């Protein structure tokens, strides 16, 4: 295991932020840590990255104990934070060269590696500019590049795309993917459900300081429920009729939305039942504008596990940790 945590606990004053977090991440895989604000995601990352000692529990990262051998851990990890930790007054190249020297790559080694990473992260054109002139996406890329200077075995990304626009997020995702393909183990915290869905091999959902569910994205979705048939009607007055037909193949209770124009019913897999429903709707003259099988989204997973939606608004708030 590249990352192994057992029973991590942390308390700030009267608030127990972590109540025994267990995680394990096999080498070369991505674990997405998902949770609402204040769930304990950042605290977990800070403990694993040796920035914060746990009150109780133990953790090893890249084969070394985070409390006993922090320096050995630090040699093998990269950390990219919620806000891009770069020196605004230095240029992109100077930032990377400085961090490279502090990673003990040597003066020449740091300079060479900085050049490579600027190239790979598409920052060469801005390398000579002070980073205060960089856009949000460029800063995140530089931050990620800085975390990769020493070719870490384990990479911690704490909400790496919070606040970025979609294009920048997708660029960053593909850059993270490249690292994973090269064998790097990644622990990623995020509030974006699609980010976890997109990048993570496995997902751990944290809420109120505990891991309340974990598994592959598919497993989590299955836990929440099976497939559902979604039927959109041209005319809401057909809803009652359509519902009667759909209830014959439903394995649970049906839902309506869109002023009754969209009906959703959970179905057991089986093409026969669906085909039967389709032809019954046609025979009755119900005009259907959309007819689709839908699998639960990460939003459904999140909602059913934590009782909270992973809303986009929540992203603006900073996670309270200290």
């Amino acid at each position, binding site marked *: 295991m590249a990352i192994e945590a057992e029973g991590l606990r942390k308390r700030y004053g009267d608030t127990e932020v972590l109540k025994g977090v267990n995680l394990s991440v096999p080498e070369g895989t991505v674990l997405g840590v998902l949770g609402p604000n204040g769930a304990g995601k950042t605290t977990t990352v*800070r403990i694993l*990255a*040796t*920035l*914060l000692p746990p009150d109780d529990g133990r953790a090893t990262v890249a084969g070394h104990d985070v409390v006993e051998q922090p*320096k050995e851990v*630090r*040699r093998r*990890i990269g*950390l990219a*934070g*919620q*806000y*891009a*930790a*770069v*020196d*605004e*007054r*230095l240029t992109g190249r*100077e930032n990377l060269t*400085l*961090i490279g*020297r*502090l*990673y*003990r790559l040597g003066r020449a080694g740091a300079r060479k590696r900085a050049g490579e990473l600027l190239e790979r992260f598409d920052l060469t054109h801005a390398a000579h500019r*002070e980073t205060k002139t960089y856009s949000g996406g460029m800063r995140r890329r530089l931050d990620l590049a*800085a975390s990769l200077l020493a070719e870490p075995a384990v990479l911690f990304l704490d909400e790496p795309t919070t606040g970025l626009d979609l294009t920048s997020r997708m660029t960053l995702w593909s850059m993270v993917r490249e690292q994973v393909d090269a064998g790097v183990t990644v622990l990623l915290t995020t509030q974006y459900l699609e980010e976890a869905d997109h990048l993570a091999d496995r997902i751990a959902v944290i809420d109120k300081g505990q891991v309340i569910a974990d598994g592959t994205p598919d497993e989590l979705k299955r836990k929440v429920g099976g497939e559902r048939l979604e039927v959109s009607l041209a005319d809401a007055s057909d809803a009652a009729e359509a519902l009667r037909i759909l209830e014959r193949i439903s394995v649970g209770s049906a839902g309506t939305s869109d002023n009754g124009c969209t009906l959703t019913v959970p179905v057991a897999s089986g093409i026969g039942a669906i085909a039967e429903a389709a032809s019954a709707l046609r025979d009755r003259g119900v005009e259907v504008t959309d007819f689709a099988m839908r699998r639960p989204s990460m939003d459904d997973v999140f909602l059913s596990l934590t009782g909270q939606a992973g809303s986009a608004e929540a992203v603006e708030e*900073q996670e309270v*940790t*200290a």
Partner: protein
Amino acid sequence: MGELVDDVMALTGRHMRHIIRVPEKLIGVTIAPVVMVLIFGYLFGSAMTVPGNGNYREYIMAGIFTMVMFSAVGTSAAGVADDLKNGLVDRFRSLPMSRYAVLLGRTFSDLAMTALSCVVMAAVGLLIGWRAHHGLLKTLAGFGLLLLLGFTMCWFGALIGLVVRSPEAVNTIASLMTMPFAFLSNSFVPLDGLPRWMQVMAEWNPISAVVSGCRQLWGNPSTTVSDALPAQHPVITALLTCGVLLAVVAPLSSRAYNRAAAH
């Protein structure tokens, strides 16, 4: 040890680049002290007489030098608070670097700035009639005392920055904390007029010790009349009080740094 030196050098390079990028920072360490020399030397000097008919401009130079050493508190505090705020401290702490490197890099760089101030002020001082009378070695020893005080103040500033954390508030708090030290000393006025208890505090104030030490080493007029230990042996008192302060403040700063969280 070699690794520590490498780290400190890399970080000192970072701070030197800041100065190139923000040349306004140089104004604080060069122009401001010059203005102080001129104001104290001419404006106040015209209204004051030093006991024993000493030259007031020679008398006040040591005081102005120490005031400028003191301003290092605010500079270091603001720098550290800035790094904390923008997450750089987190990054540094996740690196396999020496745990003292960040604060040493900060304090050495700020000390280099105060040394630059000293050079500029000494030049202006010479122009307005200040002289050191006891030869090169003792003159340099006086500056050594000043830099020791400056280094101590840089560490003090780092501690304030790590504890206060807010870049906006840190400068005010740093000056509030250092103001009493600066003025409850013999920098600009003789201590004889003070009540006895204040006199004792002022005598043991490291500032007074450094000021008296410099005056002694430079052969400038001194107002020391007390037979108290610090007044009789200012150089030793200066080394002792700065040394003790440094021995307390530096480990406290390191501890605060190692526990610092970005938010």
